[in-house]
Protein backbone atom coordinates (compact mmCIF):
# COMPACT_ATOMS: atom_id res chain seq x y z
CA UNK A 1 0.00 0.00 0.00
CA UNK A 2 1.20 3.51 -0.83
CA UNK A 3 2.75 5.59 1.96
CA UNK A 4 1.44 9.05 2.73
CA UNK A 5 1.68 11.62 5.52
CA UNK A 6 -1.26 12.72 7.65
CA UNK A 7 -1.24 16.09 5.89
CA UNK A 8 -1.33 14.42 2.48
CA UNK A 9 -4.24 12.29 3.66
CA UNK A 10 -6.24 15.36 4.79
CA UNK A 11 -5.61 17.17 1.51
CA UNK A 12 -6.50 14.17 -0.67
CA UNK A 13 -9.74 13.43 1.21
CA UNK A 14 -10.75 17.12 1.15
CA UNK A 15 -10.00 17.36 -2.59
CA UNK A 16 -12.49 14.54 -3.26
CA UNK A 17 -15.27 16.76 -1.91
CA UNK A 18 -14.87 19.25 -4.80
CA UNK A 19 -16.99 18.88 -7.95
CA UNK A 20 -16.22 19.99 -11.49
CA UNK A 21 -17.44 23.52 -12.40
CA UNK A 22 -17.70 24.56 -8.76
CA UNK A 23 -16.27 27.89 -7.62
CA UNK A 24 -14.06 27.57 -4.60
CA UNK A 25 -12.65 30.27 -2.37
CA UNK A 26 -9.14 29.15 -1.62
CA UNK A 27 -6.76 30.02 1.17
CA UNK A 28 -3.05 29.24 1.14
CA UNK A 29 -1.55 26.01 2.40
CA UNK A 30 -3.70 22.88 2.58
CA UNK A 31 -6.82 24.38 0.92
CA UNK A 32 -4.75 25.59 -2.02
CA UNK A 33 -3.21 22.13 -2.42
CA UNK A 34 -6.62 20.44 -2.17
CA UNK A 35 -8.15 22.74 -4.79
CA UNK A 36 -5.23 22.33 -7.19
CA UNK A 37 -5.34 18.56 -6.72
CA UNK A 38 -9.07 18.40 -7.48
CA UNK A 39 -8.50 20.56 -10.59
CA UNK A 40 -5.89 18.11 -11.87
CA UNK A 41 -8.13 15.09 -11.17
CA UNK A 42 -11.95 15.11 -11.12
CA UNK A 43 -12.58 18.86 -11.45
CA UNK A 44 -10.64 20.34 -14.41
CA UNK A 45 -13.09 23.24 -14.63
CA UNK A 46 -12.87 24.16 -10.96
CA UNK A 47 -12.88 27.94 -10.63
CA UNK A 48 -10.34 28.99 -8.02
CA UNK A 49 -11.02 32.34 -6.39
CA UNK A 50 -8.62 33.93 -3.90
CA UNK A 51 -9.68 36.53 -1.34
CA UNK A 52 -6.99 38.84 -2.71
CA UNK A 53 -9.26 39.35 -5.73
CA UNK A 54 -7.67 36.85 -8.15
CA UNK A 55 -10.39 34.95 -10.04
CA UNK A 56 -9.76 31.76 -12.03
CA UNK A 57 -6.06 31.66 -11.18
CA UNK A 58 -3.73 29.32 -12.98
CA UNK A 59 -0.63 29.48 -10.75
CA UNK A 60 2.75 28.70 -12.37
CA UNK A 61 4.23 27.88 -8.95
CA UNK A 62 3.13 27.10 -5.41
CA UNK A 63 2.02 30.42 -3.86
CA UNK A 64 3.34 31.23 -0.38
CA UNK A 65 0.63 33.82 0.25
CA UNK A 66 -2.87 34.41 -1.13
CA UNK A 67 -1.60 37.62 -2.72
CA UNK A 68 1.21 35.95 -4.68
CA UNK A 69 1.93 37.36 -8.17
CA UNK A 70 1.59 33.84 -9.63
CA UNK A 71 -2.14 34.00 -8.87
CA UNK A 72 -2.41 37.06 -11.12
CA UNK A 73 -0.41 36.16 -14.25
CA UNK A 74 -2.76 34.10 -16.44
CA UNK A 75 -5.85 34.54 -14.19
CA UNK A 76 -9.33 35.05 -15.68
CA UNK A 77 -9.96 38.28 -13.83
CA UNK A 78 -8.62 40.51 -11.09
CA UNK A 79 -10.82 42.71 -8.97
CA UNK A 80 -10.41 44.90 -5.92
CA UNK A 81 -10.71 43.56 -2.40
CA UNK A 82 -14.13 45.18 -1.88
CA UNK A 83 -15.38 43.83 -5.22
CA UNK A 84 -14.23 40.31 -4.39
CA UNK A 85 -16.22 40.27 -1.18
CA UNK A 86 -19.21 42.19 -2.59
CA UNK A 87 -19.67 40.75 -6.11
CA UNK A 88 -18.32 37.25 -5.70
CA UNK A 89 -18.86 36.26 -2.07
CA UNK A 90 -21.91 38.28 -0.99
CA UNK A 91 -23.22 38.04 -4.55
CA UNK A 92 -23.59 34.30 -3.94
CA UNK A 93 -21.18 33.21 -6.67
CA UNK A 94 -18.99 30.96 -4.49
CA UNK A 95 -19.94 27.33 -3.86
CA UNK A 96 -17.24 26.13 -1.50
CA UNK A 97 -15.02 27.86 1.04
CA UNK A 98 -12.14 26.20 2.87
CA UNK A 99 -11.50 27.27 6.42
CA UNK A 100 -9.22 26.27 9.26
CA UNK A 101 -8.69 27.65 12.73
CA UNK A 102 -7.10 27.30 16.13
CA UNK A 103 -10.34 26.01 17.67
CA UNK A 104 -13.41 24.29 16.20
CA UNK A 105 -16.46 23.32 18.22
CA UNK A 106 -19.19 20.73 17.82
CA UNK A 107 -21.43 23.06 15.80
CA UNK A 108 -18.60 23.93 13.39
CA UNK A 109 -17.94 27.40 14.84
CA UNK A 110 -14.36 28.47 14.26
CA UNK A 111 -12.01 30.59 16.36
CA UNK A 112 -9.08 32.31 14.65
CA UNK A 113 -9.05 35.42 16.89
CA UNK A 114 -7.86 34.79 20.48
CA UNK A 115 -7.12 32.06 22.98
CA UNK A 116 -8.35 33.35 26.34
CA UNK A 117 -10.25 36.59 26.92
CA UNK A 118 -10.57 39.06 24.02
CA UNK A 119 -9.21 42.04 25.96
CA UNK A 120 -6.27 40.25 27.58
CA UNK A 121 -5.58 37.23 25.41
CA UNK A 122 -3.21 34.44 26.24
CA UNK A 123 -2.57 34.05 22.51
CA UNK A 124 -3.50 36.69 19.99
CA UNK A 125 -4.25 35.01 16.64
CA UNK A 126 -4.43 36.88 13.29
CA UNK A 127 -8.23 37.35 13.34
CA UNK A 128 -10.98 36.84 10.78
CA UNK A 129 -9.50 38.11 7.57
CA UNK A 130 -12.16 36.94 5.15
CA UNK A 131 -13.06 33.84 7.18
CA UNK A 132 -16.25 35.18 8.81
CA UNK A 133 -17.41 36.61 5.46
CA UNK A 134 -16.71 33.28 3.75
CA UNK A 135 -18.47 31.27 6.49
CA UNK A 136 -21.53 33.53 6.21
CA UNK A 137 -21.86 33.43 2.43
CA UNK A 138 -20.64 30.22 0.75
CA UNK A 139 -22.93 27.28 0.06
CA UNK A 140 -20.58 24.76 1.72
CA UNK A 141 -17.84 25.31 4.27
CA UNK A 142 -15.16 22.62 4.35
CA UNK A 143 -12.84 22.67 7.34
CA UNK A 144 -9.43 21.00 7.03
CA UNK A 145 -7.57 20.50 10.30
CA UNK A 146 -5.29 18.16 12.20
CA UNK A 147 -7.37 16.11 14.65
CA UNK A 148 -5.99 17.31 17.98
CA UNK A 149 -7.80 17.53 21.32
CA UNK A 150 -6.59 21.14 21.78
CA UNK A 151 -8.21 22.23 18.51
CA UNK A 152 -11.54 20.48 19.01
CA UNK A 153 -13.34 22.17 21.92
CA UNK A 154 -16.91 21.96 23.16
CA UNK A 155 -17.22 25.76 22.86
CA UNK A 156 -14.76 28.09 21.12
CA UNK A 157 -13.15 30.93 23.16
CA UNK A 158 -14.18 33.37 20.44
CA UNK A 159 -16.59 32.74 17.58
CA UNK A 160 -14.75 34.33 14.66
CA UNK A 161 -16.66 32.50 11.92
CA UNK A 162 -20.14 31.19 12.64
CA UNK A 163 -20.88 27.54 12.04
CA UNK A 164 -24.30 26.40 13.23
CA UNK A 165 -23.83 28.65 16.34
CA UNK A 166 -25.62 26.86 19.25
CA UNK A 167 -27.47 24.50 16.94
CA UNK A 168 -29.31 24.68 13.65
CA UNK A 169 -32.44 26.30 15.10
CA UNK A 170 -30.44 29.33 16.35
CA UNK A 171 -28.51 29.42 13.08
CA UNK A 172 -31.70 29.52 10.94
CA UNK A 173 -32.83 32.50 12.98
CA UNK A 174 -29.76 34.47 11.82
CA UNK A 175 -30.85 34.13 8.16
CA UNK A 176 -27.29 33.91 6.85
CA UNK A 177 -27.32 33.32 3.10
CA UNK A 178 -24.64 30.62 3.24
CA UNK A 179 -25.28 26.92 3.73
CA UNK A 180 -23.10 26.59 6.83
CA UNK A 181 -20.47 23.96 7.62
CA UNK A 182 -20.55 20.96 5.31
CA UNK A 183 -17.60 18.76 6.26
CA UNK A 184 -14.64 18.62 8.63
CA UNK A 185 -11.73 16.67 7.19
CA UNK A 186 -9.02 15.61 9.65
CA UNK A 187 -6.23 13.07 9.52
CA UNK A 188 -8.47 10.57 11.36
CA UNK A 189 -11.87 10.93 9.80
CA UNK A 190 -14.47 12.96 7.94
CA UNK A 191 -17.29 14.51 9.95
CA UNK A 192 -20.44 16.10 8.59
CA UNK A 193 -23.31 17.89 10.36
CA UNK A 194 -26.63 16.51 11.57
CA UNK A 195 -29.48 17.70 9.30
CA UNK A 196 -31.74 18.51 12.25
CA UNK A 197 -29.46 19.73 15.03
CA UNK A 198 -26.35 20.86 13.14
CA UNK A 199 -24.11 18.81 15.43
CA UNK A 200 -20.80 17.48 14.10
CA UNK A 201 -21.17 13.78 13.32
CA UNK A 202 -18.54 11.19 12.45
CA UNK A 203 -19.42 9.77 9.02
CA UNK A 204 -16.26 8.19 7.63
CA UNK A 205 -13.12 6.71 9.21
CA UNK A 206 -9.79 6.99 7.41
CA UNK A 207 -7.77 3.78 6.85
CA UNK A 208 -6.77 2.03 10.07
CA UNK A 209 -8.62 4.44 12.38
CA UNK A 210 -11.21 3.26 14.95
CA UNK A 211 -14.07 5.24 16.45
CA UNK A 212 -12.23 5.18 19.82
CA UNK A 213 -9.18 6.91 18.25
CA UNK A 214 -11.38 9.77 17.08
CA UNK A 215 -13.21 10.01 20.41
CA UNK A 216 -9.89 10.10 22.29
CA UNK A 217 -8.94 13.28 20.39
CA UNK A 218 -12.37 14.91 20.65
CA UNK A 219 -13.12 16.34 24.12
CA UNK A 220 -16.90 15.95 23.96
CA UNK A 221 -19.05 12.85 23.40
CA UNK A 222 -18.85 12.77 19.61
CA UNK A 223 -21.99 11.90 17.70
CA UNK A 224 -21.42 8.90 15.42
CA UNK A 225 -23.54 8.18 12.31
CA UNK A 226 -25.66 5.02 12.32
CA UNK A 227 -23.54 3.65 9.52
CA UNK A 228 -19.90 4.82 9.53
CA UNK A 229 -18.15 4.47 6.19
CA UNK A 230 -14.53 3.60 5.46
CA UNK A 231 -12.62 6.36 3.64
CA UNK A 232 -10.90 4.80 0.60
CA UNK A 233 -7.11 4.98 1.01
CA UNK A 234 -5.27 7.59 -1.10
CA UNK A 235 -4.38 6.16 -4.49
CA UNK A 236 -0.91 6.20 -6.06
CA UNK A 237 -2.26 8.68 -8.61
CA UNK A 238 -3.63 11.04 -5.96
CA UNK A 239 -0.36 10.97 -4.02
CA UNK A 240 1.86 11.47 -7.07
CA UNK A 241 -0.32 14.31 -8.42
CA UNK A 242 -0.34 16.07 -5.05
CA UNK A 243 3.45 15.85 -4.70
CA UNK A 244 3.78 17.24 -8.24
CA UNK A 245 1.87 20.38 -7.19
CA UNK A 246 4.33 21.24 -4.39
CA UNK A 247 7.62 19.76 -5.61
CA UNK A 248 9.66 22.17 -3.45
CA UNK A 249 7.72 20.99 -0.39
CA UNK A 250 6.79 24.54 0.62
CA UNK A 251 3.74 23.21 2.42
CA UNK A 252 3.71 19.44 2.09
CA UNK A 253 4.97 17.49 5.06
Amino acid sequence: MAEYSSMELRIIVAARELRDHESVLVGVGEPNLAANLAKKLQAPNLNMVYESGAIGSNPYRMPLSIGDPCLVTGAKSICSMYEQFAYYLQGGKIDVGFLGGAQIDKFGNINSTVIGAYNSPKVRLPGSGGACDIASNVKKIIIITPHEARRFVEKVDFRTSPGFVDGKAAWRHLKLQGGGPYAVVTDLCTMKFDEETGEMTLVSLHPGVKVEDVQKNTPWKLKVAAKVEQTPAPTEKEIATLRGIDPGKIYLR
Partner: protein
Amino acid sequence: MDSVKTMSMKEAVSKYVKDGDLAYLAGFTHMIPFAAGHEIIRQKKRNLVLARATPDIIYDQMIAAGCAKKLIFSYAGNPGVGSLRCFRRATERPKPKEGQPAPTDWKPLEIEEYTHFGLSGRLFAGATNMPFLPMRSNIGSDLPANNPAIKTVKDPFTGDDVSVVPPLRPDVAVVHVQRADRNGNAHIWGITGEQKDAAFAAKKVILSAEEIVDESVIRSDPNRTLIPDFVVHAVVHEPWCAHPSYVQGYYDRDNEFYMQWDEVTKEHETTMKYMDEWVFGVEDRAEYMKKIPREKLDRLKFKPAVCTPVDFGTM
Protein backbone atom coordinates in the same frame (compact mmCIF):
# COMPACT_ATOMS: atom_id res chain seq x y z
CA MET B 1 9.25 71.73 -15.22
CA ASP B 2 8.42 69.47 -12.33
CA SER B 3 4.88 69.51 -10.99
CA VAL B 4 4.49 71.09 -7.56
CA LYS B 5 3.34 67.71 -6.29
CA THR B 6 6.55 65.80 -7.03
CA MET B 7 8.79 65.48 -4.00
CA SER B 8 10.94 63.00 -2.10
CA MET B 9 9.41 60.51 0.33
CA LYS B 10 11.06 62.44 3.13
CA GLU B 11 9.29 65.66 2.11
CA ALA B 12 5.97 63.90 1.48
CA VAL B 13 5.90 62.22 4.91
CA SER B 14 7.08 65.39 6.64
CA LYS B 15 4.39 67.46 4.90
CA TYR B 16 1.40 65.11 4.98
CA VAL B 17 1.76 62.73 7.94
CA LYS B 18 1.10 64.39 11.31
CA ASP B 19 1.35 62.95 14.80
CA GLY B 20 -2.03 61.51 15.79
CA ASP B 21 -3.22 61.03 12.18
CA LEU B 22 -5.34 58.11 11.05
CA ALA B 23 -3.08 56.66 8.35
CA TYR B 24 -3.89 53.97 5.79
CA LEU B 25 -0.88 52.52 3.98
CA ALA B 26 -2.62 50.52 1.26
CA GLY B 27 -1.79 47.32 -0.63
CA PHE B 28 -3.16 43.81 -0.16
CA THR B 29 0.09 41.78 -0.11
CA HIS B 30 0.95 43.63 -3.33
CA MET B 31 2.71 47.06 -3.54
CA ILE B 32 2.88 47.65 0.20
CA PRO B 33 4.64 51.03 0.60
CA PHE B 34 7.49 49.93 2.88
CA ALA B 35 9.61 52.97 1.94
CA ALA B 36 6.87 55.24 3.33
CA GLY B 37 6.56 53.15 6.48
CA HIS B 38 10.30 53.36 7.07
CA GLU B 39 10.27 57.13 6.52
CA ILE B 40 7.43 57.49 9.05
CA ILE B 41 9.53 55.49 11.54
CA ARG B 42 12.65 57.59 10.82
CA GLN B 43 10.73 60.82 11.34
CA LYS B 44 9.50 59.38 14.66
CA LYS B 45 5.82 60.06 14.02
CA ARG B 46 3.79 59.25 17.14
CA ASN B 47 0.24 58.36 18.26
CA LEU B 48 -0.81 57.28 14.79
CA VAL B 49 -4.00 55.32 14.31
CA LEU B 50 -2.76 52.75 11.83
CA ALA B 51 -5.42 51.21 9.60
CA ARG B 52 -4.79 48.36 7.16
CA ALA B 53 -6.76 45.20 6.34
CA THR B 54 -3.54 43.21 6.65
CA PRO B 55 -1.09 45.02 8.95
CA ASP B 56 1.67 42.81 7.45
CA ILE B 57 5.33 43.35 8.33
CA ILE B 58 5.09 47.09 7.64
CA TYR B 59 2.79 47.77 10.62
CA ASP B 60 4.61 45.18 12.75
CA GLN B 61 7.65 47.41 12.26
CA MET B 62 5.77 50.63 12.97
CA ILE B 63 4.24 49.12 16.13
CA ALA B 64 7.67 47.97 17.34
CA ALA B 65 9.10 51.44 16.62
CA GLY B 66 6.45 53.10 18.79
CA CYS B 67 4.54 54.98 16.06
CA ALA B 68 1.11 53.45 16.80
CA LYS B 69 -1.51 54.39 19.35
CA LYS B 70 -4.15 52.15 17.83
CA LEU B 71 -4.52 49.54 15.13
CA ILE B 72 -7.60 49.11 12.88
CA PHE B 73 -7.32 45.81 11.00
CA SER B 74 -8.90 42.57 9.81
CA TYR B 75 -6.04 40.06 9.52
CA ALA B 76 -2.91 40.52 11.63
CA GLY B 77 -0.75 37.64 10.46
CA ASN B 78 2.50 37.27 8.53
CA PRO B 79 0.95 36.07 5.23
CA GLY B 80 2.05 32.53 4.42
CA VAL B 81 4.34 32.39 7.47
CA GLY B 82 2.33 32.78 10.70
CA SER B 83 2.35 35.43 13.42
CA LEU B 84 3.25 39.07 13.55
CA ARG B 85 5.29 38.95 16.73
CA CYS B 86 5.53 42.69 17.47
CA PHE B 87 1.75 42.96 17.17
CA ARG B 88 1.39 39.96 19.49
CA ARG B 89 3.77 41.42 22.07
CA ALA B 90 1.70 44.61 22.00
CA THR B 91 -1.64 42.82 22.47
CA GLU B 92 -1.06 39.62 24.49
CA ARG B 93 -1.21 39.52 28.27
CA PRO B 94 2.47 39.25 29.31
CA LYS B 95 3.52 36.01 30.97
CA PRO B 96 4.90 36.64 34.47
CA LYS B 97 8.66 36.05 34.74
CA GLU B 98 9.62 33.08 36.87
CA GLY B 99 9.19 33.73 40.59
CA GLN B 100 7.72 37.20 39.97
CA PRO B 101 4.15 38.43 40.24
CA ALA B 102 2.24 39.20 37.04
CA PRO B 103 2.88 42.79 35.86
CA THR B 104 0.03 45.13 36.81
CA ASP B 105 0.92 48.12 34.62
CA TRP B 106 0.36 46.29 31.33
CA LYS B 107 -1.50 48.33 28.73
CA PRO B 108 -2.22 46.64 25.42
CA LEU B 109 -2.17 48.41 22.06
CA GLU B 110 -5.68 49.66 21.35
CA ILE B 111 -7.34 47.65 18.57
CA GLU B 112 -10.43 47.91 16.40
CA GLU B 113 -11.11 44.72 14.50
CA TYR B 114 -13.23 43.85 11.45
CA THR B 115 -13.57 41.13 8.85
CA HIS B 116 -11.93 41.78 5.47
CA PHE B 117 -15.32 42.65 4.00
CA GLY B 118 -16.01 44.91 6.96
CA LEU B 119 -12.80 46.90 6.64
CA SER B 120 -12.73 47.09 2.83
CA GLY B 121 -16.43 48.03 3.07
CA ARG B 122 -15.57 50.84 5.50
CA LEU B 123 -13.12 52.28 2.96
CA PHE B 124 -15.66 51.89 0.15
CA ALA B 125 -18.23 53.73 2.29
CA GLY B 126 -15.64 56.42 3.07
CA ALA B 127 -14.71 56.80 -0.60
CA THR B 128 -18.35 57.02 -1.77
CA ASN B 129 -19.51 59.13 1.18
CA MET B 130 -22.15 56.68 2.35
CA PRO B 131 -23.56 57.08 5.87
CA PHE B 132 -22.82 53.40 6.56
CA LEU B 133 -22.54 50.14 4.67
CA PRO B 134 -24.89 47.17 5.18
CA MET B 135 -23.35 43.74 4.78
CA ARG B 136 -24.23 40.05 5.04
CA SER B 137 -21.54 39.18 7.56
CA ASN B 138 -20.66 39.76 11.24
CA ILE B 139 -24.01 38.40 12.46
CA GLY B 140 -23.34 35.16 14.32
CA SER B 141 -19.73 36.18 15.01
CA ASP B 142 -18.41 37.52 18.34
CA LEU B 143 -16.83 40.49 16.52
CA PRO B 144 -19.76 42.95 16.90
CA ALA B 145 -19.91 42.32 20.67
CA ASN B 146 -16.26 43.36 20.89
CA ASN B 147 -16.32 46.29 18.46
CA PRO B 148 -19.01 48.92 19.13
CA ALA B 149 -18.49 50.37 15.64
CA ILE B 150 -20.13 47.29 14.10
CA LYS B 151 -23.86 47.85 14.61
CA THR B 152 -27.09 46.10 13.70
CA VAL B 153 -30.03 47.97 12.15
CA LYS B 154 -33.43 46.90 10.86
CA ASP B 155 -33.64 46.50 7.11
CA PRO B 156 -36.46 48.97 6.27
CA PHE B 157 -37.67 46.72 3.45
CA THR B 158 -37.73 43.28 5.06
CA GLY B 159 -37.55 44.06 8.79
CA ASP B 160 -34.60 41.68 9.14
CA ASP B 161 -31.53 42.49 11.21
CA VAL B 162 -28.66 43.72 9.08
CA SER B 163 -25.06 44.41 10.11
CA VAL B 164 -23.61 47.83 9.24
CA VAL B 165 -20.15 49.37 9.41
CA PRO B 166 -19.27 53.09 9.44
CA PRO B 167 -17.31 54.86 6.68
CA LEU B 168 -13.54 55.12 7.14
CA ARG B 169 -11.94 58.42 6.15
CA PRO B 170 -8.20 58.32 6.80
CA ASP B 171 -6.37 61.61 7.36
CA VAL B 172 -3.72 60.34 5.00
CA ALA B 173 -3.42 57.37 2.63
CA VAL B 174 -0.20 56.12 1.07
CA VAL B 175 -0.55 54.21 -2.19
CA HIS B 176 2.25 52.71 -4.24
CA VAL B 177 1.69 52.03 -7.95
CA GLN B 178 3.56 50.76 -11.00
CA ARG B 179 3.52 54.02 -12.93
CA ALA B 180 2.13 57.50 -12.64
CA ASP B 181 2.59 60.84 -14.35
CA ARG B 182 3.98 63.85 -12.48
CA ASN B 183 0.50 64.97 -11.43
CA GLY B 184 -0.39 61.59 -9.95
CA ASN B 185 -2.58 59.92 -12.57
CA ALA B 186 -1.78 56.34 -11.68
CA HIS B 187 -1.78 53.07 -13.60
CA ILE B 188 -2.22 49.97 -11.44
CA TRP B 189 -2.37 46.33 -12.49
CA GLY B 190 -2.21 43.02 -10.66
CA ILE B 191 -3.90 42.76 -7.28
CA THR B 192 -5.59 46.13 -6.78
CA GLY B 193 -6.60 45.47 -3.17
CA GLU B 194 -7.96 48.62 -1.49
CA GLN B 195 -5.72 51.08 -3.37
CA LYS B 196 -8.48 53.03 -5.13
CA ASP B 197 -10.83 52.97 -2.13
CA ALA B 198 -8.09 54.22 0.20
CA ALA B 199 -7.11 57.02 -2.20
CA PHE B 200 -10.70 58.24 -2.62
CA ALA B 201 -11.55 57.88 1.09
CA ALA B 202 -8.53 59.77 2.46
CA LYS B 203 -8.23 63.51 3.03
CA LYS B 204 -4.61 63.54 1.81
CA VAL B 205 -2.95 61.08 -0.56
CA ILE B 206 0.76 60.33 -0.96
CA LEU B 207 1.25 58.42 -4.19
CA SER B 208 4.56 56.75 -4.96
CA ALA B 209 5.45 55.01 -8.21
CA GLU B 210 8.07 52.65 -9.58
CA GLU B 211 8.19 54.84 -12.70
CA ILE B 212 7.17 58.38 -13.48
CA VAL B 213 5.92 58.44 -17.07
CA ASP B 214 4.69 61.05 -19.49
CA GLU B 215 1.00 61.94 -19.32
CA SER B 216 0.61 60.50 -22.85
CA VAL B 217 1.44 57.01 -21.51
CA ILE B 218 -1.39 57.32 -18.99
CA ARG B 219 -3.81 58.66 -21.61
CA SER B 220 -2.95 55.78 -23.96
CA ASP B 221 -4.67 53.35 -21.55
CA PRO B 222 -7.24 55.23 -19.43
CA ASN B 223 -9.02 52.09 -18.15
CA ARG B 224 -5.89 51.30 -16.18
CA THR B 225 -5.93 54.64 -14.36
CA LEU B 226 -7.49 53.69 -11.01
CA ILE B 227 -6.43 56.91 -9.31
CA PRO B 228 -6.79 60.30 -11.05
CA ASP B 229 -4.48 63.21 -10.28
CA PHE B 230 -7.01 65.43 -8.52
CA VAL B 231 -7.25 63.15 -5.46
CA VAL B 232 -3.45 63.04 -5.10
CA HIS B 233 -1.42 65.51 -3.01
CA ALA B 234 2.16 64.23 -3.29
CA VAL B 235 3.85 62.24 -6.07
CA VAL B 236 7.03 60.39 -5.16
CA HIS B 237 9.28 58.55 -7.60
CA GLU B 238 10.37 55.62 -5.43
CA PRO B 239 11.75 52.53 -7.22
CA TRP B 240 11.71 49.37 -5.05
CA CYS B 241 9.39 51.15 -2.62
CA ALA B 242 7.50 47.92 -1.90
CA HIS B 243 10.39 45.58 -1.02
CA PRO B 244 10.03 43.03 0.67
CA SER B 245 6.50 43.12 -0.76
CA TYR B 246 6.29 43.03 -4.56
CA VAL B 247 5.22 44.95 -7.64
CA GLN B 248 3.51 42.94 -10.38
CA GLY B 249 5.73 42.82 -13.45
CA TYR B 250 8.61 44.67 -11.71
CA TYR B 251 9.90 42.50 -8.83
CA ASP B 252 8.76 39.44 -6.92
CA ARG B 253 7.81 39.18 -3.26
CA ASP B 254 10.88 38.52 -1.11
CA ASN B 255 9.38 35.47 0.59
CA GLU B 256 12.74 34.71 2.18
CA PHE B 257 12.54 38.02 4.07
CA TYR B 258 8.97 37.31 5.19
CA MET B 259 10.20 34.02 6.67
CA GLN B 260 13.26 35.66 8.26
CA TRP B 261 11.07 38.33 9.88
CA ASP B 262 9.69 35.62 12.15
CA GLU B 263 13.23 35.05 13.47
CA VAL B 264 14.22 38.76 13.58
CA THR B 265 11.23 39.61 15.78
CA LYS B 266 11.63 36.84 18.37
CA GLU B 267 12.52 39.58 20.89
CA HIS B 268 11.87 43.33 20.93
CA GLU B 269 15.65 43.90 21.17
CA THR B 270 16.42 41.88 18.04
CA THR B 271 13.65 43.74 16.21
CA MET B 272 15.16 47.11 17.17
CA LYS B 273 18.59 45.92 16.07
CA TYR B 274 17.09 45.33 12.62
CA MET B 275 15.50 48.76 12.75
CA ASP B 276 18.79 50.44 13.69
CA GLU B 277 20.51 48.90 10.69
CA TRP B 278 17.83 48.96 7.98
CA VAL B 279 15.64 51.94 8.91
CA PHE B 280 17.50 54.41 11.15
CA GLY B 281 20.84 53.41 9.62
CA VAL B 282 19.92 54.57 6.12
CA GLU B 283 18.93 57.94 4.72
CA ASP B 284 16.29 56.76 2.26
CA ARG B 285 15.09 53.87 0.09
CA ALA B 286 17.98 54.21 -2.37
CA GLU B 287 20.46 53.61 0.48
CA TYR B 288 18.37 50.71 1.78
CA MET B 289 18.48 49.11 -1.66
CA LYS B 290 22.28 49.46 -1.86
CA LYS B 291 22.54 47.16 1.15
CA ILE B 292 20.76 44.29 -0.63
CA PRO B 293 23.08 42.04 -2.67
CA ARG B 294 22.77 42.36 -6.44
CA GLU B 295 22.25 38.59 -6.87
CA LYS B 296 19.23 38.74 -4.63
CA LEU B 297 17.66 41.59 -6.59
CA ASP B 298 18.31 39.70 -9.83
CA ARG B 299 16.50 36.68 -8.38
CA LEU B 300 13.45 38.85 -7.67
CA LYS B 301 13.17 40.07 -11.29
CA PHE B 302 10.31 38.63 -13.38
CA LYS B 303 10.46 37.27 -16.88
CA PRO B 304 8.08 39.30 -19.10
CA ALA B 305 4.42 38.29 -19.51
CA VAL B 306 3.00 41.07 -21.70
CA CYS B 307 -0.73 41.47 -22.34
CA THR B 308 -2.28 41.77 -25.80
CA PRO B 309 -2.65 45.49 -26.65
CA VAL B 310 -6.15 46.94 -26.96
CA ASP B 311 -7.22 49.45 -29.60
CA PHE B 312 -9.10 52.52 -28.34
CA GLY B 313 -9.68 53.87 -31.84
CA THR B 314 -9.63 57.49 -32.99
CA MET B 315 -10.87 59.59 -35.91
